[in-house]
């Protein structure tokens, strides 16, 4: 394994990753999984539940070193990550949660971020006083506060109701366009990927590799209903083909 910053883009080349259960034989989770993202691009990794998406994200985030292959992070490798559970510090206020991970950010920058995510009135609240939807937004604000070279989102819309999910999806899309930060989203929801990404990586079932890559010519705000429907149809066909193989 190796993991380094300084590349111009995100390059993931995982030869293999095995998971060894407490008592049992090793299972291969990832097998020859390769993907790249150029600077400023948003990629979405889509695959069925349990196919190893989160494992992939943990390897890229440097939380799992037990794999063979290499990961090169863009620029200085500064990471911002939104975990599935928000993982905020419950004993610090919302604004302190941002300040602690981003000690160099100015008060104005923090305020602007909180404002952009509709959190201005919650700045002094503790995370325990927030709903899951709000806590997710705080986690997103925190990930952006560090001015990341790579933004990692693990199922950012999961377990939110439809309205909340749609609202947050629009916010994420707007922020990706505004900040031009290299972003990797992991999701089980194809429509979510189509709404957010420049490029979609479809994963095969376990052991996962990238079965197909879809480039989106008109991402996010420029996406039309017809284009989204056409993409979805294409992607479903590719997924079925990968499964049949």
């Amino acid at each position, binding site marked *: 394994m190796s993991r380094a910053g300084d590349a111009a883009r995100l390059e993931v080349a995982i030869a293999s990753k095995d998971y060894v259960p407490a008592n049992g034989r090793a299972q291969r989770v990832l097998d020859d999984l390769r993907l790249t993202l150029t600077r400023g691009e948003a990629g979405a990794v889509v695959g069925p539940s349990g196919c190893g998406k989160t494992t992939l994200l943990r390897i890229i*985030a*440097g*939380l799992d070193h037990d794999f063979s292959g290499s990961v090169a992070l863009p620029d200085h490798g*500064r*990471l*911002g*990550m939104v*975990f599935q*559970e928000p*993982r905020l*510090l*419950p*004993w*610090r206020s919302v604004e302190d949660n941002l300040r*602690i*991970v981003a*000690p160099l950010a100015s008060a104005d920058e923090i305020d602007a971020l909180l404002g952009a995510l509709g959190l201005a009135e919650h700045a002094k*609240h*503790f995370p*325990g*006083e*927030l*709903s899951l939807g709000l806590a997710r937004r705080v986690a997103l604000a*925190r990930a952006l506060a*560090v001015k990341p070279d790579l933004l*990692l989102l693990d199922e950012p819309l999961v377990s939110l109701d439809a309205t909340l999910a749609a609202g947050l999806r629009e916010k994420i899309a707007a922020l990706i366009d505004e900040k031009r930060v290299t972003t990797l989203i992991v999701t089980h929801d194809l429509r979510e990927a189509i709404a957010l990404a420049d490029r979609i990586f479809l994963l095969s079932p376990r052991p996962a590799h990238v079965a197909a890559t879809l480039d989106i010519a008109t991402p996010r705000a420029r996406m039309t209903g017809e284009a989204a429907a056409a993409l979805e149809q294409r992607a479903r066909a590719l997924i079925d083909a990968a499964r049949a193989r």
Partner: protein
Amino acid sequence: MTRLWSFAALLLTWQGFAWFAEPRRLPGPALVFETMLEEARSGALFSNMAITLARVAAAFLLAMSLGSAIGYAMGRNKLADRVLDPWLVALLNLPALVVIVLAYVWAGLNEAAAIGAAALNKLPNAVVVAREGARALDRNLDEMAQVFGLSAKARFRHVLLPQLAPYLAAATRSGLSLVWKIVLVVELLGRSNGVGFEIGLAFQLFDVRLLLAYAIPFVALMLGVETFLVQPLERHVSRWRRGAA
């Protein structure tokens, strides 16, 4: 208010028994208070209390800082836990008196031996509590701190300490009362000043008035420390829990 009534009932019971007992065995509250005033006027009460309080503080801080560090290491590191556990069990079951006598025999009748012996009696308890705290640390927050590259100082202050705070508060409460009781024994056996020494003197003269005149103010002092120092501190560090939904 209920506390005041309860306290008044205690005083009344004391007075009631004092009416039937001979004053040498059990002097009434008024007599004891008089002796207290005498000792206070001569300055002996305050100087002895100050000396004892200083010993309590030194022994307590020594035991808590060392105990927390060892307990944390044992909670985080399996090898350290396995190596140190028998020592811990031995120390937990070693009678306080044995530790004190051995300390005086080996290190001489000096201040270091006195404080060290008192600290050593509290140490295993602090270790046990800190170990429980370290075992309960949230791995998710550790990973968050790692991904965001938090400095060691920020991790200690914002991630580690708030999680250990309830455990340290519990160790503080049980610790203060334990340490001051042991310091009295230490003073009785090998010091020529302090509340414990005065109580030893009172015992040799069978002077129950003097004994109570020293014991009661010190109990009141420790009650004050608990009420005005430990409890407000505990409320401050757990204020984030109050608003929890």
